[in-house]
C-alpha cells in the first residue's frame, strides 16, 4: 500500500523529533556551546561597549550559521546506509524523506535560533530596534532555509568519507542568500526601512532550496544506496 507524500514526511519528521527529544543534543550540547562561543567573541576584542554593540548582529548570524550547521548535520547523521536502504525498501518517496527531515531540523533550529538572541543581547549590551518582533519570522525563515540546506548537503555527501568536512564546505557558501536576507532585514529595521524586500529574498531562497531538495532527492538517494 502506497503511503502519501505528506504522511510519509510527517512519519520521518516525527522520528527525527523523537530522537532529538530523547538525546537532547541541540538543547543540552549545541546550544550551550553556541552561548560559550558568543561569550568568547568579546574576549577577543577590546570590549568597548560601542564596538560590542556593532559586533552583536554579525556575531549572531555567524554563530547561527556555524551552530545551525551542527544541529542539522547531527540530524542527517542519524541515518546510516543500512537505514537508508531499509527506508528505500519501504517504498518511501525520497522527496518526502527530505521534506520530513528538513521540517524536523527547522522545528529544532528555530527555537534555538530564537533563544540565541538572549545571550547576544545580554553579553553585547545590544539594544534591539523598535519593531524587533518582525525579526521573528525572519529568524524562522533563515532557520528553515538552513535546515533544508543541511538536509540537502547531508544527502549530497551521504556515504562519503570526508562527509563531516565536505558538508559544511558545501553548505556555507549556499547559505549566503539566507544570511544576507536575514542580516539585511535587521539593518533595514534599524534604519527604519521596510524589510519586505529582504523577507522576499528569504522566501525565494527557501522555495529554491525546497525545489532543489525535492527534485534531487531521488538521484541523491540512488547514489547513496
Amino acid at each position: 500500500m502506497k503511503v502519501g507524500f505528506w504522511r510519509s514526511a510527517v512519519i520521518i519528521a516525527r522520528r527525527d523529533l523523537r530522537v532529538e527529544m530523547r538525546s537532547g543534543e541541540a538543547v543540552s550540547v549545541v546550544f550551550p556551546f553556541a552561548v560559550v562561543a558568543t561569550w568568547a567573541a568579546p574576549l577577543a576584542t577590546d570590549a568597548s561597549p560601542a564596538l560590542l554593540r556593532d559586533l552583536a548582529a554579525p556575531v549572531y548570524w555567524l554563530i547561527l550559521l556555524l551552530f545551525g550547521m551542527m544541529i542539522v548535520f547531527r540530524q542527517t547523521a542519524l541515518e546510516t546506509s543500512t537505514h537508508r536502504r531499509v527506508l528505500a525498501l519501504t517504498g518511501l518517496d525520497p522527496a518526502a524523506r527530505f521534506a520530513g527531515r528538513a521540517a524536523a531540523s527547522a522545528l529544532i533550529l528555530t527555537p534555538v535560533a530564537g533563544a540565541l538572541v538572549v545571550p547576544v543581547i545580554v553579553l553585547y549590551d545590544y539594544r534591539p530596534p523598535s519593531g524587533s518582533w518582525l525579526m521573528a519570522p525572519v529568524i524562522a525563515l533563515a532557520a528553515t532555509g538552513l535546515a533544508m540546506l543541511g538536509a540537502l548537503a547531508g544527502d549530497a555527501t551521504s556515504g562519503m568519507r570526508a562527509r563531516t568536512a565536505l558538508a559544511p564546505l558545501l553548505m556555507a557558501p549556499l547559505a549566503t542568500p539566507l544570511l544576507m536576507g536575514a542580516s539585511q532585514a535587521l539593518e533595514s529595521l534599524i534604519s527604519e526601512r521596510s524589510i519586505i524586500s529582504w523577507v522576499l529574498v528569504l522566501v525565494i531562497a527557501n522555495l529554491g532550496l525546497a525545489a532543489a531538495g525535492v527534485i534531487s532527492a531521488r538521484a541523491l538517494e540512488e547514489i547513496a544506496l
Partner: protein
Amino acid sequence: MTRPQAARPSSTPAPLVELVDLSVSLSGVPVLKGCHLTLHRGESLGVAGPNGAGKSTLLATVAAFIPPGEGSGEVLGARLGTNQTLAIRSRIGWSGHIPALYPDLTLGENLAMTAQLTGHPAAEGLSALDKVGLGAAKNIRAERCSNGMRRRADLARLLIGRPHLVLLDEPDAGLDRDAALIIGHLIRRTTSRGGGVLCVSHDADRLGAWVDRVVEIREGRMA
C-alpha cells in the same frame, strides 16, 4: 552442497530472480564475476562463501541497491539497472549485517514506523515484535537492547506486510539457537505463499538447515 529441491514448483512462469552472467564492480574493483542465479517462486536459496566472496554485494545487487556492471538481471519482473526496480522495492524485504534500528527509538517505535511507512497500521509492527518474542520489550530503546534482541527486532521487520522476496545477510549472527528458529519460520512463511528467499552466510551447514538448496560463491564467482 546442493540439496534436492523438493519444495520447488516444477512449472513456474517466471523466476523471482534471474541473474545471467552478471558482474558488479565496487570503486573499480570487480566483486561479482559472471554470476548466474535463478530463484523460483516458493523457493529458498542459500549462498555460502567465505568473507569477502561477494555475498553481501550479491544481495545488494538483487535488492537493486547496486546496478550491475555487465550481464543482466531481473528481479520480480524488473530489469536491474533500470528505473523499473523503483516499483518493486516495496516488495522486497532485506536484513543486512547491522540491524536497521534507530538507537534512540524503542523497539516498538522502530517497528511501528516501518509498518506506517509501508502503509500498515502501527499495531502490525508491534504484532511482529510479539511474533519474535519481543512483545514485552517494545518500550525498550534499541540502544539498550542486546545485539540478539536487535537482530530479532530486525527480523520482525520482515514479518510486516508480505514481502515477495526476502534477502537475508548472515541472519543468524548474534542469535542464540532458539532465536535462530525465527529464521526458519520466516523462510517457510515466505515460501509457503509463493515468495522467495535468498540467504547468504559463511556457514553452508547452517544454511542447509533452512533453505531448499545451497550454492557456493568464491571470489565473486558462483560454483
